[in-house]
């Protein structure tokens, strides 16, 4: 794989008890990163990563508008998130809520995600700060990565088992 200038790997830190900060460099200008980040047909291509397939990406990109993404994980179960846009500065900044549909709706206490698309050389530095509200929610979000990772490991194990059968 060709590594290009400006591109980095995702870096996750926990600035406070209740926050998660993700940063990542991209080798493309902010307006393109913003486009990939907010356009349903493009979100469908990246949001599930290696963990499944996106089956729905709806984005009503205006303040007060809602978004909803659904994916079917490799193991067959559905994962869905939705939220509402609170602030929109095209190509620069998005503030939105983010609710995981597998837990009771937190209402007003939904985590708030602030995403910024900053010029960095010829590329973009994307920062995504999630204010989770409580440490418990923060921990649950981080744990979800581990659970998905374990699921992948189980899937691989299953593939191996099938190939041996």
């Amino acid at each position, binding site marked *: 794989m060709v590594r290009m200038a400006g*591109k980095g*790997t*995702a*870096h*996750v*830190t*926990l600035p*406070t*008890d209740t926050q*998660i900060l*993700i940063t*990542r460099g*991209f*080798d*493309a*200008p902010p307006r*393109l*990163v913003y*486009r*990939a*980040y907010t356009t349903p047909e*493009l979100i469908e*291509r*990246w*949001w*599930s*990563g*290696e*963990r499944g397939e996106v089956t729905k990406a709806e984005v009503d990109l205006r303040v007060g508008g809602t978004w909803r993404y659904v994916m079917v994980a490799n193991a067959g179960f559905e994962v869905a998130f939705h939220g509402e846009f609170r602030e929109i500065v095209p190509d620069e900044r998005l503030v939105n809520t983010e609710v995981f549909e597998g837990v009771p709706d937190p209402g007003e206490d939904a985590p708030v995600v602030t995403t910024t698309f900053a010029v960095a050389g010829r590329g973009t530095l994307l920062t995504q700060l999630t204010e989770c509200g409580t*440490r418990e929610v923060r*921990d649950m*979000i*981080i*744990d*979800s*990565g*581990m659970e*998905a*990772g*374990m699921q992948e490991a189980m899937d691989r194990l299953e593939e191996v088992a099938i190939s041996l059968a």
Partner: protein
Amino acid sequence: MARAATTADAFNAVAEPRRRQILEVLAGGERPVGDLVTTLKLAQPLVSKHLRVLREVGLVDVRDEGRQRIYRLNGRRLKPIHDWVKPFERAWEERFERMDAVLEELKAEEGDGSDGG
């Protein structure tokens, strides 16, 4: 796999914002207590209290140099936290690598990624 919820582990020690500040300062190199007090603009007893907690969980080590107590970061102890966050980080990196592919296409569409359009 949830982490252990003991009161004396590294996770709880770094949950306190000021203790995280202390660790950040020490990440730049070892420092005497007086230095930490000045840098962080906190009262000495408060800094000492936080340092004691950090020492108890092994996140910092201390040595005496003359009349000064010098503290330094023990990075090894941060590893459990790093290990906890890593799968989450990897999940996002997988997404971003797919975004890289999408972005290469968008740039190609625009004609060699020229910003002028």
